[in-house]
């Protein structure tokens, strides 16, 4: 069996779906952030796979590079917000972040 572009794209679609389902079903903010990382990683896999089948330039790999950098910034700020929420509510459940509701 030969591995083709379709296998990589299908794999990354499934990983993206797992990440999206995790983000929608879990209520623990830490695991929701990890699900976001899963989705970003699957998009990186898609970009790099497309770039392998178009090796005239590095456009896809450059996009993946910037996605990695932005994901690192997002993780840093997101985890700082988790710590701030924990100080305020003594909880990391996203259901408990409802100060604007009451």
């Amino acid at each position, binding site marked *: 069996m*030969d*591995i*083709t*572009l*379709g*296998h990589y*794209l*299908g*794999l990354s*679609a*499934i*990983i993206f779906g*797992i990440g999206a*389902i*995790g983000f*929608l*079903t879990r*209520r*623990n903010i*830490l*695991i929701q*952030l*990890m*699900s976001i*990382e*899963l989705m970003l*990683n699957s998009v*990186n*896999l898609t970009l*790099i*796979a497309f*770039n*392998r*089948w178009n*090796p005239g*330039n*590095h*456009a896809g*790999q*450059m996009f*993946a*590079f*910037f996605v990695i*950098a*932005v*994901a*690192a*910034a997002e*993780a*840093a*700020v997101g*985890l*700082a*917000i*988790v*710590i*701030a929420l*924990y100080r305020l509510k*003594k909880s*990391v459940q996203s259901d408990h972040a409802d100060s604007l509701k009451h």
Partner: protein
Amino acid sequence: MSNAGTTIFILFAVIALFAAAFTVTAKSAIRAAVGLLAHIISLAALYLTLHAHLLATLQLIVYAGAVVVLFIFVIMLIGPVSEDKGTDRGLVSRALGAGAMAIVTAAIAFNIWSFAPDAPAITSCPGGANAERWTTNEQGVASVTCGEFGGVRSFGLELYREAGLPFELISILLLVAIIGAIAIGRGRSNEEVEALKARKAARLASPVVAPEPVVETESQPVGGE
């Protein structure tokens, strides 16, 4: 792709899928972080099969080395609160969302499966590994496909040539993110909390809206806790 490539792809694709599923289903956040680590390492191996050597390295350094460690630091800092208690709240909407995402994902994955062009050969420098790395075309522009595709030299050359401004903007973004993370995560010292409480009490006590008296401790930020 060779047989060894097929084997490596299947091995790491299976590991990546199981690790991702483990990450989103694990009860304990620390187990989820370990699942994320396994997922990231297997994705780095998949990047290697796609000839993206530099990005596989960056994936290991940035994700496995920094992001997962940051997650584990936060889980350790928060302690047992980070465990999932398992609530039934919003169960219907959660199930609906998960079902819709599963259907969409399955549709995309099974349709894209048949999209199967053969992998093109990656051009390399004429003259072998010891030849001049960079050749120029008729316009005098160095070719980036000459040299190792996905390697540090060819990737870096094209990055600085094509995306120099975004590269610099990313450094500003990371600087802002560092400052923002410190500012959000730092919290307030006891003196600042007392000053805020005093201000709030004064505001609630005075019936008329008056210009607030200047609280001296407020304008002098005190260092972290």
